[in-house]
């Protein structure tokens, strides 16, 4: 009986604190994402990649982190990584038109490269 009470209490603590932890993670990840945007706008794409990779690691369910990461990989010519990041972003937020449009533009270039490769 005593053990059952302890377990119930622990469960209660976890269920109450989990959203708070997730929110904290999102807040930290968002700071990385914002800083990444600032440096990317200055053309510092490698630093941006580092920031967005951190954001994606801290909050693996943050679509913006993966979208931005995909763009940065694309800019660096790392097409396979870009594709995976776009797909993850779309998996997290399938109805986001911005991510989808970014992905369409990426695919157009990627397909053209692959067409040349298969000639």
């Amino acid at each position: 009986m005593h053990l059952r009470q302890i377990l119930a209490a622990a469960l209660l603590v976890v269920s109450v604190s989990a959203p708070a932890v997730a929110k904290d993670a999102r807040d930290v990840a968002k700071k990385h994402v914002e800083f990444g945007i600032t440096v990317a706008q200055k053309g510092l794409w490698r630093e941006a990649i580092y920031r967005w990779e951190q954001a994606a690691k801290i909050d693996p369910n943050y679509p913006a982190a993966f979208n931005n990461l995909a763009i940065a990989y694309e800019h660096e010519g790392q097409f396979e990584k870009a594709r995976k990041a776009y797909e993850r972003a779309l998996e997290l937020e399938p109805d986001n038109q911005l991510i989808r449009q970014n992905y369409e533009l990426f695919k157009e270039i990627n397909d053209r490269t692959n067409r040349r490769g298969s000639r």
Partner: protein
Amino acid sequence: MTARTAAAVASFALALTVSACNDVYEVPIETPIQPKMDVSPFQRVLIAGFLAGGSEDVDANLETVRLLRSQLRSKSQLKVIDADVLPLLELANEQRTDKGETSANGASPATPPPAGGPTPASNTTTQAPPKAKDVQQARIKDEKDLEPLEGIFANVDFWKKIGEEYQNPLIVTGSVLFTAHARSGFVQREQEVIDQLGRRRVVPVRTYMERKGFILQPKFIFIDGRTGTTIYSEGYKEEVLYSPQQTTPALSSYFELMDRLVPSFLSTLSTQKIKGSRVLMK
């Protein structure tokens, strides 16, 4: 809808969406496209010459060599070799003749002209009769005419010898078919009309029209000058049509069509960057 049109529509939609959102940032990006070929073993490139045919108004061999050399000079790391343009059509014909003789009397195949020396086209002592080039070019009207001559590209000894003469460069050769063509059919164009209220309006009108233009079909072949073997090849087909009122010189059309192909050609040898924009999100 083609991929390019779809991308343009997506890009426009993207711009519209961005203007309506606060937490998004449109950024310009340059996507690097890696060259299809590994050109690291080469420091120099020789645009040797092309099997050319089609319209007699344009010397497609000479013009293609000139254009590609000038493009590579400004947009590639490779040093472009200045050499006489090979009269490839004549050489291919000679090789075919020699091949026939080879089976009969064991004669060796036609050898390339010496580096820097006069080419058979400019050599007055050549056995080819005057205007032989014109006669041979006139015979090349379509792909079928080119086919029997394309064996020259597989002649490893021939290309190896050229490679030796120019210190083993990357050799670019191939065929260029530039032909006039006409097509009739319905064309949609815009026409200004005045409605019952006296207002001017532009309406799309479908008109039956016979249009004339040109087709450009180049095939670029990249040969390793050290071994004489083909490393890579790619073919293209572009066409342009003009309304009957338009008089466009053949040479202008040739350059118009080559302009479309040159980026693809260059991206085979060197990294090209495609400019675009994407949307970052918070």
